[in-house]
């Protein structure tokens, strides 16, 4: 599971191999502005080493990389996976250990957490660190940690005792995408668990916020950079404790599945068509260790087992287990089951001999599948021999053991076998219509429902989902009274060209309304999606968010704020990949004190086919090169691959007008020891150059900045072109007119 953070850091290398999944979409003007602004923040560049001293063929050429690393800022992003958490309330001699799970879904970051009470023993006056022989090189051997009962980050996802379970963290605010700031606000509701039989089972203790800051992890954490600390404040703003969180695993949760079976029953291990325990649970971020244990469980009273007999067999035959140190589920494969033909989560209600719910399931291998057409390819077969439906039933029953109920939203894991078989539509036959994953809402539950809901031995099966807290997706309230207009600069574009848009947020109400100061991409307030002619959805988000604080202002009735954005690539790759009509939906959203609000607008653009082979090749180059986006957004000589793709586009007469400003922008700015070359940039800008209002303003700013060094001819040439382009703009922008006037002045 890759991480945005790691990817973003790759952009700091001289020759990036930034993959498709890099966060994408940009406002060229925004990001070039950002680049300019960053120059003031950067430390002085180190002196270059003379070629003769380094280019000896023996030493790697690292100097350039060092320079670039110094020049480019560090981006901060939350790594996906499980974080070990410690919350220390102020003024107490105890704390809470736990986990926070961070998941990215498209443009959203969804997170949740659980806290377990921990009071370290202090029965001896001397610190154990003074007397214990410690092996600091391996935290798993660090006896200090063991003495205090602290979880070791080196052991990955920690497991805590059910008896110490106290809180669910319903995380409502967290860092999305990338940020230049090392601090962000973590907002969460703290839900106290009152007990499985208590009413109410949960109490919301209110909203808390913590300004979490990236810092270096202590020894033992697998990723030194993915560690954060912050002070936690309650809704009154009072500091109530300290929170640390450090990344420990790419998975969100982990469990063991132990399989015992009678001698002539098969162990459900895979579907026979590539689906197994791990790759099914990879989709929900669970690490599953499968243990094939006893293969000779004896039958008690004939071939058919009652629920009680299966429970007794689980207790008798399974390996030693402590559910407070391991999440272990048990599967018993038998010939037949009394109460059901195929499978059952018999261990539902904590009313059995050990009063521990949701530990075990049973599955029957000798049910004969009816010999009717409903059962498709497996009709008439013995269930255990029909690998796909047999394995699916095991997944289904385990889903019940993890707290899930039936879900008929699709033909996924938690639908019932009968419904799926009856739902096959010719020519597809059962079990080919099985969807080998959990329905979307079940996936979220497996990732983010409270530990005590999903772990074996937690709350009994059968409580309504609605009783339990669950972290939200990005909940957003419609910003009524505001209208987001999206206008394509060119609504017909040749394939391979970036699409430029003017966006404006207008107050159409009669009241003053709070809006963000900026709706630029870099503000972090704008994102969206592109729907291609086949209905596929691709998302775009800011590549970099330049501010951590997002100030608001009031927008008067009839007033509007404007900006431009340029789209080329998104989280799922190139956004405009084939000819046809594309719908572009832009969403502006921002945080208010009590929640998240936003509004959206949409427009369409038509992408035309390649006009000739040369155009096709150039389009292929820019669309298949992820770094084209970086060249467009960040700009710099170091982005070799992106700049090369843009050069290919410039060499093509169809795409040239669409990329001319991007190259001109690069040339017009100094990079390293290279000086700004306004003259070369000027030769690229023509009256047919495609530039958004934002890009025209940016070009004007660069031109004014170069006033002292540029020759009069180039200055007049460029200003003349900008004037023409501004006049041709299909979106009236007063600030653009002011900018052009200021050049003339």
């Amino acid at each position: 599971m890759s991480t945005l953070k790691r990817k973003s850091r790759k952009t700091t290398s001289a020759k990036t191999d930034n993959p498709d999944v890099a966060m994408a979409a940009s406002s060229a003007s925004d990001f070039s502005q950002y680049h300019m602004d960053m120059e003031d923040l950067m430390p002085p560049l180190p002196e270059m080493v003379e070629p003769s001293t380094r280019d000896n063929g023996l030493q790697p050429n690292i100097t350039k990389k060092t320079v670039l690393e110094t020049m480019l800022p560090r981006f901060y992003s939350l790594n996906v996976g499980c974080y070990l958490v410690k919350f220390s309330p102020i003024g107490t001699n105890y704390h809470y250990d736990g986990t926070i799970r961070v998941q990215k879904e498209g443009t959203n970051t969804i997170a949740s957490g659980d806290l377990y009470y921990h009071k370290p023993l202090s029965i001896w006056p001397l610190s154990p660190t003074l007397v214990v022989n410690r092996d600091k090189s391996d935290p798993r051997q660090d006896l200090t940690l063991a003495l205090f009962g602290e979880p070791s980050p080196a052991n990955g996802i920690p497991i805590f005792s059910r008896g110490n379970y106290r809180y669910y963290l319903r995380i409502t605010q967290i860092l999305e995408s990338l940020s230049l700031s090392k601090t962000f606000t973590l907002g969460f509701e703290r839900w106290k668990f009152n007990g499985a039989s208590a009413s109410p089972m949960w109490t919301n203790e209110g909203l808390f916020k913590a300004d979490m800051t990236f810092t270096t992890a202590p020894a033992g954490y697998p990723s030194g950079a993915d560690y954060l600390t912050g002070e936690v404040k309650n809704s009154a703003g009072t500091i109530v404790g300290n929170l640390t969180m450090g990344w420990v695993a790419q998975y969100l949760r982990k469990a063991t599945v132990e399989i015992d079976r009678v001698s002539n029953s098969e162990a459900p291990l895979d579907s026979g068509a590539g689906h197994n325990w791990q790759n099914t649970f990879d989709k929900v971020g669970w690490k599953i260790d499968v243990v094939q244990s006893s293969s000779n469980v004896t039958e008690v009273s004939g071939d058919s087992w009652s629920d009680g007999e299966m429970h007794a067999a689980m207790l008798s035959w399974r390996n030693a287990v402590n559910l407070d140190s391991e999440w272990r589920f048990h599967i018993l494969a038998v010939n037949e089951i009394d109460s059901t033909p195929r499978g059952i989560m018999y261990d539902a209600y904590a009313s059995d001999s050990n009063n521990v719910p949701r530990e075990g399931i049973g599955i029957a291998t000798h049910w004969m599948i009816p010999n009717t057409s409903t059962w498709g390819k497996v009709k008439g077969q013995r269930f255990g021999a029909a690998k796909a439906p047999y394995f699916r039933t095991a997944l289904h029953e385990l889903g019940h053991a993890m707290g899930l109920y039936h879900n008929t939203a699709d033909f996924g894991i938690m639908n019932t076998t009968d419904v799926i078989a009856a739902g096959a539509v010719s020519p597809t036959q059962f079990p080919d219509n099985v969807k080998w994953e959990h329905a979307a809402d079940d996936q979220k539950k497996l990732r983010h429902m409270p530990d005590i809901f999903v772990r074996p031995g937690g709350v009994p099966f059968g409580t309504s989902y609605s009783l339990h807290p669950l972290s939200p997706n990005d909940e957003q309230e419609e910003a009524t009274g505001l209208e987001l207009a999206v206008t394509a600069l060119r609504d017909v574009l040749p394939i391979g060209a970036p699409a430029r848009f003017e966006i404006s947020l207008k107050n159409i109400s009669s009241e003053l309304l709070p809006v963000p100061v900026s709706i630029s991409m870099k503000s972090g307030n704008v994102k969206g999606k592109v729907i291609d002619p086949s209905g596929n959805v691709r998302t775009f988000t800011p590549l970099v968010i330049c501010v951590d604080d997002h100030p608001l202002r009031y927008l008067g009735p009839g007033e509007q704020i404007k900006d431009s954005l340029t789209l080329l690539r998104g989280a799922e790759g190139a956004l405009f990949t084939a000819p046809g009509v594309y719908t572009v939906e832009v969403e502006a959203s921002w945080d208010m004190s009590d929640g998240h609000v936003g509004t959206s607008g949409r427009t369409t653009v038509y992408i035309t086919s390649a006009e000739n082979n040369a155009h096709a090749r150039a389009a292929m180059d820019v669309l298949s090169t992820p770094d084209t986006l970086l060249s467009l957004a960040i700009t710099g000589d170091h982005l070799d691959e992106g700049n090369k793709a843009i050069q290919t586009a410039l060499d093509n007469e169809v795409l040239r007008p669409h990329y001319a400003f991007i190259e001109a922008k690069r040339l017009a700015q100094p990079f390293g020891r290279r000086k700004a070359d306004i003259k070369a940039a000027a030769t690229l800008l023509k009256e047919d150059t495609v530039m958004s209002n934002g890009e025209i303003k940016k070009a004007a700013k660069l031109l004014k900045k170069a006033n002292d060094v540029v020759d009069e001819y180039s200055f007049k040439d460029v200003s003349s072109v900008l004037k023409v382009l501004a006049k041709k703009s299909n979106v009236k922008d007063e600030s653009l007119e002011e900018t052009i006037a200021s050049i003339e002045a």
Partner: protein
Amino acid sequence: MFKKYNLAHFILCLSIGAVQQGCISNSSVKQNKMNIVGNWTKVKGNACSEKYPDEIEFKHNGIYQAQAANETTMHPVWDAGTFELNGNSINISTSNDAVIKYAVEMDNETASFNDPDGCTIKYKRLNRQD
């Protein structure tokens, strides 16, 4: 909620005294199943029946789909699965996949199920799917 077509069809069946597919009959399992096919709503008031769904639809193909009210604290014992009517009893697969046998009594408008714990759950017919 009672579809006009169904009502007219039902009256027509009674008036000609026909025993045909879609009309009431207890002569076979299949026709029994047809009898229960349709949408039902729970008659509330019995505390022990709270764990059963508020709405349930029994379909022609032996599959049912049920829904609980939003404010319920318990996930319904019947949520989605299969049913099979056998004379005066019905086997219904439950939320943990156990198939439970219930005694059942039905007339045109109501159905009463008796669970193994002795609880009686009453439903009122919303419509019939002949």
